[in-house]
């Protein structure tokens, strides 16, 4: 019998309980893809606001998307808040999220609603941040270089081996950069730019914000990232100056979606409406989030890059967010750019 007990206990531990039954009232499983502090603050503030018990799990947007896809048959999350817009659009395309039209819509910036219409109301914009680059002032001075102000400056020969960006195959940030160049300069000239830039790149990192972290610790001079990430480095104390390129630039729209088949649909919608209010969005001031919020009445941080002074392109999220176009551009980048000798 001893053996049975052993085998049984191994199995007992392994199978154990499962979350089979229906959830109790007033609970929300919150998937969050912004930074930890912000996620915590949103979760706690919503608990205070509504009395709903919030279970928050923080993962990057790519990880959350992969998890939702794996959980498709039996969704565990209710709402997905934060993270760059592409995976949200992808989730809408793969029918992992639920359409919802919030009564809060008329308070939002047009770009936030444009994000919703491009995905048949399955997602909505909550913040936006422009693409740009940041440089390490100390390394720049040591090398005696003039500060770069435009995309073109980064292709100058004196920046050889001094620029870092993420690999568009692995990072949404870098894919935004690629799509931005294509929209800014046109497809041929855009790829030509990427090729010239390729000659100066010292490393294609895997994660999108890694280049500016490397610039912070002095491992590279310039990092191509979203500007709010660069500002966060400066605020953390690193010698980083962020630059909004003179030619103009693209941007991301941080989004929010309701999980299709959510077990707590009412709470999810309540959160959705609340997260679009000016009060909830102004919380970003407390946590070093330097994005521009989507509610027109929300205040953004004074350290945030001033969007009105940045030349923003008319970024076509519907076209460049679709998986076909993404696949085509990435394949082209793979074959024409990444194979070139550096």
């Amino acid at each position, binding site marked *: 019998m001893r053996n049975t007990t052993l085998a049984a206990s191994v199995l007992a531990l392994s199978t154990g309980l499962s979350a089979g*039954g229906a959830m109790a009232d007033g609970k929300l499983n919150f998937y969050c893809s912004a930074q930890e502090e912000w996620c915590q603050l949103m979760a706690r503030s919503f608990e205070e606001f509504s009395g709903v018990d919030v279970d928050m799990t923080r993962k990057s947007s*790519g990880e959350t998307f992969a998890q939702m896809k794996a959980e498709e048959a039996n969704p565990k999350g209710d709402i997905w808040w934060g993270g760059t817009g*592409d995976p949200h659009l992808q989730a809408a395309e793969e029918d992992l999220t639920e359409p919802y039209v919030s009564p809060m819509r008329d308070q939002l910036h047009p770009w936030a609603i444009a994000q919703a219409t491009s995905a048949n109301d399955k997602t909505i914009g909550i913040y936006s941040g422009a693409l740009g680059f940041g440089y390490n002032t100390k390394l720049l001075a040591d090398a005696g270089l003039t500060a770069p102000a435009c995309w073109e400056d980064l292709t100058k020969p004196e920046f050889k081996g001094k620029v870092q960006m993420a690999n568009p195959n692995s990072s949404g940030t870098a894919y935004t950069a690629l799509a931005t160049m294509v929209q800014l300069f046109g497809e041929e000239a855009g790829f030509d730019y990427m090729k010239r830039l390729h000659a100066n790149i010292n490393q294609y990192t*895997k994660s999108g914000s890694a280049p500016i972290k490397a610039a*912070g610790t002095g491992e590279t001079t310039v990092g191509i990232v979203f500007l709010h990430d660069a500002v966060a480095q400066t605020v*953390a104390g690193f010698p980083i100056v962020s630059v909004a390129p003179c030619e103009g630039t693209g941007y991301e729209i941080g989004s929010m979606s309701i999980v299709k088949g959510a077990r707590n649909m009412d709470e999810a919608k309540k959160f959705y409406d609340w997260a679009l209010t000016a009060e909830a969005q102004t919380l970003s001031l407390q946590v070093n989030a330097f994005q521009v919020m989507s509610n027109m009445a929300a205040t953004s941080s004074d350290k945030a890059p001033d969007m009105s002074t940045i030349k923003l392109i008319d970024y076509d999220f519907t076209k460049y967010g679709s998986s076909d176009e993404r696949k085509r551009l990435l394949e082209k980048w793979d074959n024409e750019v990444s194979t070139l000798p550096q």
Partner: protein
Amino acid sequence: MIGWAGFLLLPWYGVEDFYTFKWLLDGWPMDSDYAPAIMLIAQGQKLWLAPMLLALAAPLLVMRRRKTDAIYGKVLIVAGGFGFAWLVAQGLGIGLRGYAYGWMIALFGDLGDRQFGMGYGGLLVASSFLFVFTQGIAARGAVNGDVFVTAAIGGVVAVVTIFVFFPITKMLGAAFISDDGGYSIMEFFGKFVDRRIWGLGCFSGTNCGAAWNSLFLAILVGLLTTTLGLIFALVLTRSGFKYKQSLRALTVLPIITPPFVIGLALILLFGLSGTVTQWVAGVFDVQPTRWLYGMPGILIAQTLAFTPIAFLVMIGVVEGVSPSMEEAAQTLRANRWQTFRTVSLPLMRPGLANAFLLGFIESMADFGNPLVLGGNFDVLSTEIFFAIVGAQYDQSRAAILAMVLLGFTLGAFYLQRFWLGKKSYTTVTGKGDSGVHPPMPKRIALPVYAIAGTWGLFTIMVYCYIIYGSFVQLWGVDDTLTFKHYMTAFAVTWGDGGMRWTGSAWDSFFTTIMIATIAAPFTAVMGLITAYLLTRQNFAGKRSFEFGTMLSFAIPGTVIGVAYILAFNVPPIEITGTGIILVVSFVFRNMPVGVRAGIASMSQLDKSLDESSLTLGANSWQTFRLIILPLLRPAILAALVYSFVRAMTAISAVIFLVSARYDMATSYIIGRVENNDYGLAIAYSTALIFVMLFAVGMLQLAVGRTKIGRRSSNSGGH
């Protein structure tokens, strides 16, 4: 009997908050959410559970018969086999939305009912079917009718199938799914021969494919870690070195280090703006370069990180080599070098082979170091991760890459078997064996000391730097000393109602320790039982089973994480979002180290030890417990230490399995690193390192050392 209890009493389906026993008052046994299977059937619900009654009843009929009776065995096999098969079939066939497969709806019409994940009732029934089945086989004469061995084989095979094969097959199946959702072999080959996997560009100025990079790196890491592991083991057992205990602690340091920390420390030491780089640049007036990024950096970091595993395997084997054989060689006038080369070293082969295999596999599956230090040197593990979570969301590519990786591992596995061959490495026998290990021959003593010393110093330097990093404001920029990071993470305040853990790290800290403590003994037990079965018993399919136990270790954690969600987020086993899934993933992921260490040690134990025990009337369970287990202390220690530590430091599998209530230390640390809170991340890591050092010390005390009846080499007068 247990099966009946499960069928009659316990709720068949999973119940939230089982241990509050609220379900006892809340409508049990009638409410269909909580009812045991028998009540469900009596009420006419879930009728598909009924056939199992037959299978449970059958064994009762033959209870009275003697074990040698042919009918006894046959009935047990049929009943157990049918019951288990039916249980699995109904579990997989009927899911949350009725029938799980389209063809079943076509065949039987819509079911109009559904079921949730199995609970304790289903679990007990499943294990009793399994036991009945194995008992039946034993009665029919398999493995000499040994009930313990057949039950153990049955149990291990069943859980490995459920928690290793099932999820991984599910994941790898994605390799054949084409973009539009259909199955396609052509698509598979198209993606398989991708230039990014197999390209040979590094001979012409660009980059090689990830497969070649990984293979090359893994071989180098395997060789280096095995050599270093052997060197440290030699210093510890065959030299007059005085500070052996501190050396032991030093060698385990790297496995108890959370991911990213070593990489970060290496960057701050040797990166473009690193302390050492700047110093060298200043003194020798050379231009600082980014040499660290890419192959060299990963190689250094992985060698640092995986040498301890090789050491843990080697130490048991080096200690186990019989001094009598070495003394015999010396009596026959071999000098120390000849003895070492022709007797000691060949006897260490199982250790060398297993250590190499572990280093190779670890390097293949390692994710953290390539991520931080990889530069443009792509390896399979990072490619897989970003195929899943990156901008392409290409699960089939991830599955294909995982297959390539598994292919290499399989290759290494068979190479290792081939190299070991069919020779015998037995050195621990029942005979008196009271020799003393000879010290190392001079010819190798000098280089061994030199290498061990250099590597030891290097490790100390890296670690001092890490500890220093947790006390400064902003690592690498602002060097003012501060306690602020520890305060944020581990603050404790005294308020009403006693002590309050206000630090932000406590939650994940306690969860991590709890999960690691639960997982470690299970891992060790599973690992050693498996090792025992593999070395001591013969049964059909043993080789493929052996490789199967390595699978979950060889596959990068990311794949395991996604595979576990795919497999265990839906009935019959629905455990995502619980602590159980974390424990399970750790047990099956780290079990192979126990298996390897156990195999390496057990192949040194003479079979005559078991045989004499069996001849004297002990059964195989007693033999295992009283003879083999005590001789396996180094292997037990290795398995316990490794699984405990890995449960605390593993990251990639955990990313997908953590939930709000079960957050792990490593995912907290990663969150901090992403948020530029390097100080906090390192402070937390440092705290974890000390906790683990303490735990490892305690484990060492608890398990004790093997006393093989030899004089200790210290009192031997050297």
